[in-house]
């Protein structure tokens, strides 16, 4: 079934590519229709997904035996939400791409191939396969930015590609080293995540490998000071590119840190808690401060991403139940809200062909529905209680406070700063009286645009009000990671930071004994 999740977008891309270039009007609707299929499959998987820590729906096929590489797929509570999010964002991103006038066929095919790659990264449970997907997605994204982006698109595309390729080069060295260590200890090389987690690594080796992996993922997240490619890529990318970049591609970094750095190098992870946490907090504050002074709306949202992703990394390296839960759920939340914000920026850009905040003003009067959605998403992004952002950031901050209290306190300022830059931007763009002539005649959102934003808004609300729908499926896996870290290192999660320590009595006698204890 999981193979189909990857194969469906590829098949869809081939079908779109086979439609003759002259039938321009067909490509986009066809692409959207076909991309609903993986979404349906994803929704079904979400529904039948069992809340356990094990990988589910696993598939395994040997790729090349002597090298120990295999086509191994699996889903757990950490990857499942990301897969569903990816499948959801692609049709929406395509739906927002009616503004693409040139080479539509290639655009749709590229986006669908990107989807296959992104889903593959989350599904892979073999490091070789993971790396293949991790690297392959650069190409469609490179083309999306480079062909359909704005003025400095070539520069941004190149920067995006090279930055990420640089990081993954060192990760590949790490992967090779791991596989060869497996060959030394067990006789044959293996790239299976489960096999590599059993390796005995010396402290030095483990730290070097941790660093190699962390660098690759930190560039992707991006963590301060490796973030400089992100604003360029975001500002130059077309709307669909920005949505998928923020919604999914950046999550490859946070997902990778959670899955591979914690999973493969528990000892080094415990040692690196302060380093990673500090970098994350610097990112939170730095991103927020820089976002305040951005004159460009899209850049503002891009820098807010740097800030928000800092929370995810911080939660990951808090190494507590709340921190990990918060990190995973914030992965989804950020995809929904920032994805929606990029959509909204794209919509106004299509109307006014500018993203400069100073060009706008008073849009509330002219475009009330647009303003409503924008404000809603801003609130979600700030973390207003009742909306999804609150759940994630609250969990992260609580989880961090138990182990890294200083960082948690500084990080909390990020929430305040978010309110400043987002609400101030809202004030400048939407409130007041429209002064510029161009702004007075803007049309409000069309039915198509509303139908793109509504599903995101509904999910924002659902996760905000009933986070357990998601948390129940995530928690067993995050607890599994903590258990694993506790077993393989001397680290112990402090009691208030641990869900699993809650004593559950099965019989009356046990309950009494428990109370006595």
């Amino acid at each position: 079934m999981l193979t189909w999740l990857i194969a469906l977008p590829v098949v869809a891309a081939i079908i779109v590519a086979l439609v003759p270039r002259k039938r321009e009007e067909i490509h986009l609707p066809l692409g959207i229709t076909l991309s609903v299929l993986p979404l349906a499959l994803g929704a079904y998987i979400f529904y039948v997904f069992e809340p356990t820590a094990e990988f589910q729906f696993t598939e395994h096929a040997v790729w090349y035996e002597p090298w120990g590489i295999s086509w191994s797929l699996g889903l757990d509570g950490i990857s499942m939400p990301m897969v569903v999010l990816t499948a959801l964002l692609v049709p929406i991103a395509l739906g927002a791409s009616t503004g693409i006038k040139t080479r539509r066929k290639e655009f749709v095919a590229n986006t669908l191939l990107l989807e296959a790659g992104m889903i593959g990264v989350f599904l892979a449970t073999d490091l070789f396969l993971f790396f293949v997907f991790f690297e392959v997605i650069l190409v469609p994204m490179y083309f999306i930015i480079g062909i359909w982006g704005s003025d400095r698109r070539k520069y941004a595309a190149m920067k995006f590609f090279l930055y990420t390729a640089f990081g993954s080069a060192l990760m590949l060295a790490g992967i090779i080293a791991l596989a060869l260590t497996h060959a030394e200890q067990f006789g044959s090389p293996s790239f299976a995540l489960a096999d590599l987690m059993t390796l005995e690594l010396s402290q030095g080796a483990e730290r070097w490998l941790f660093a190699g992996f962390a660098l690759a993922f930190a560039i992707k997240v991006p963590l301060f000071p490796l973030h400089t490619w992100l604003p360029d890529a975001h500002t130059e990318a077309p709307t669909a590119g920005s949505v998928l970049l923020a919604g999914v591609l950046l999550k490859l970094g946070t997902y990778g840190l959670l899955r591979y750095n914690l999973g493969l190098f528990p000892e080094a992870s415990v040692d690196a808690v302060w380093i990673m946490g500090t970098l994350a907090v610097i990112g939170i504050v730095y991103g927020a401060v820089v976002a305040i002074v951005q004159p460009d709306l899209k850049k503002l949202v891009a820098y807010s991403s740097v800030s928000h992703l800092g929370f995810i990394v911080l939660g990951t390296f808090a190494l507590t139940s709340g921190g990990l839960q918060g990190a995973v759920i914030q992965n989804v939340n950020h995809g929904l809200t920032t994805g929606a914000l990029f959509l909204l920026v794209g919509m106004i850009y299509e109307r006014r062909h500018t993203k400069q905040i100073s060009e706008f003003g008073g849009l509330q009067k002219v475009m009330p529905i647009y303003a409503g959605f924008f404000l809603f998403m801003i609130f979600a992004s700030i973390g207003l209680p009742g909306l999804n952002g609150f759940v994630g950031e609250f969990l992260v901050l609580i989880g961090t406070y138990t182990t890294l209290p200083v960082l948690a306190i500084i990080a909390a300022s990020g929430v305040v700063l978010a309110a400043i830059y987002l609400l101030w931007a809202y004030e400048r763009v939407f409130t007041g009286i429209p002064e510029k002539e161009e702004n007075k005649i803007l049309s409000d959102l069309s039915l198509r645009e509303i139908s793109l934003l509504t599903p995101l808004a509904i999910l924002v609300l659902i996760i905000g009000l009933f986070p357990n729908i998601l948390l129940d499926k995530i928690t067993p896996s995050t607890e599994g990671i903590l258990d694993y870290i506790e077993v393989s290192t001397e680290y112990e999660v402090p009691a208030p930071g641990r869900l699993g320590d809650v004593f559950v009595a099965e019989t009356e006698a046990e309950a009494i004994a428990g109370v006595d204890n």
Partner: protein
Amino acid sequence: MVTPDVQWIAIFPELILAVGAAVVLLVEVQWKPPISRLGLITVVTFVLAFVFTILQWAQAEDALRVGFTGDLVGFSGMILMDGFAVFGRFVLIGVMGLGLLAGWRFIESLGRRGAEAIALVLLATTGFSIMVASNNLVLMFLGLEVGSIALYVLAGMTRQKTRSDEAAMKYFLLGSFASAIFVYGVALLYAGTGEFEILAMRGFFSDVIVTTPAVILIGMGLVIVGLGFKVSAAPFHNWAPDVYQGAPAGITGYMAAMAKIAGFAAIARILITGLPQFDQNWAPVLAGIAAASMLVGSVVALVQSDVRRLLAYSGIAHAGFIMTGIVGGATEGMLFYVTVYAIKLVGAFAIVAAVSGSDSSASDIDEYRGLAKRSPLLAVSFAVLLLGMAGLPLTSGFVAKFGVFTEAWAGGYAWLVIVGLLMSVVTFAFYLRVIVVMFMDEAEGDRVSVSTALRWAVGIAVVGTILTGIAPEPLLKLAADAFPL
């Protein structure tokens, strides 16, 4: 009279190629047929030679299975038919077929001299094929010279005289110099061991402990330098850009691929089979050459504005990557890399020939502006080949790089692997520059006309690149079985 022990099957592929070359020339002189007739003869020669390598492969496999490898040495120990030799021939002859397809338009454009070009291609393959298969260093030198001299002439065979002549002259002078160095090395190895045969040399070292190996080490060094020139590894690379740029585009890919395949096979054969006891001496040297090649090739390629010079410098970087595979003392990764790289190289130069004209001597990057709009299929093919060379996953380039890097890492050369990985990122940068020009710039000029033969050559290269990237198992298995005796 005692009849000498002649196993004709040992040299059947080379015999067929040489006879084919002679027939092409004789037919041309006698009947002056249209070039397509000569093409027919070439095809027959190619198919026969190819089939015989497959037969040899079966024989080598059988011998390995029963464990008796005595049959694999023919012609009184001159020629080897082990998996390594047969694999090398197989690739050489296969790439020759691809090269002829890619260069057919160029051969046609030569008019009556087309027959010479065909004969030279067949003879060059003969020479390199003998070089790959020989167990004797003198024979290896003969093969090297037969092949190289044919290539010198091919480099000069174009109507746009000056550039091409310059390239041919430069290639000839520096090439002969390198050959001389190689022979000097062979002589010193003989002085040190009393053997010309590679297998016997290994036997010599297993019986004798050499207390003063200076002569042997100098000989080994000279052999490495001579062959390093042929494969255009830094710091012996300076001829490559000028020759790649000046030689007719239709045939450059073939020339470059041949020299690399045969050169690396010879390096591996001499060092890994003949001088394994000295791996503490040659492995660091090769590692240094590999690192230098990767650095020089990829960094200098960044600033090239001519696609052919860019491919030439990237070829230097690839020489470094391939050498990384030998450093670890294994040949599987190296053979796989050389094979898939040769295919991509011929395909890429076929496209260069299509865009700039098959006998032209320059291909400015501006000629590729907006190619994606003018000839989408050609642009996509070029992009696949370039990304394949850069080593993007799901192309053969990634599997190849992965293979050589894993071998080097296992051999204790982690630093070399890290240099290699970082330089791979740099290679992405310049390959992407070509892709930027093709896909992201506005179109200038017209649709590129592509001949059927060239279309086939490019098609085979592209499909091969993707197929061996997704399902590398068959070729990897072959390369793993093709270890030298």
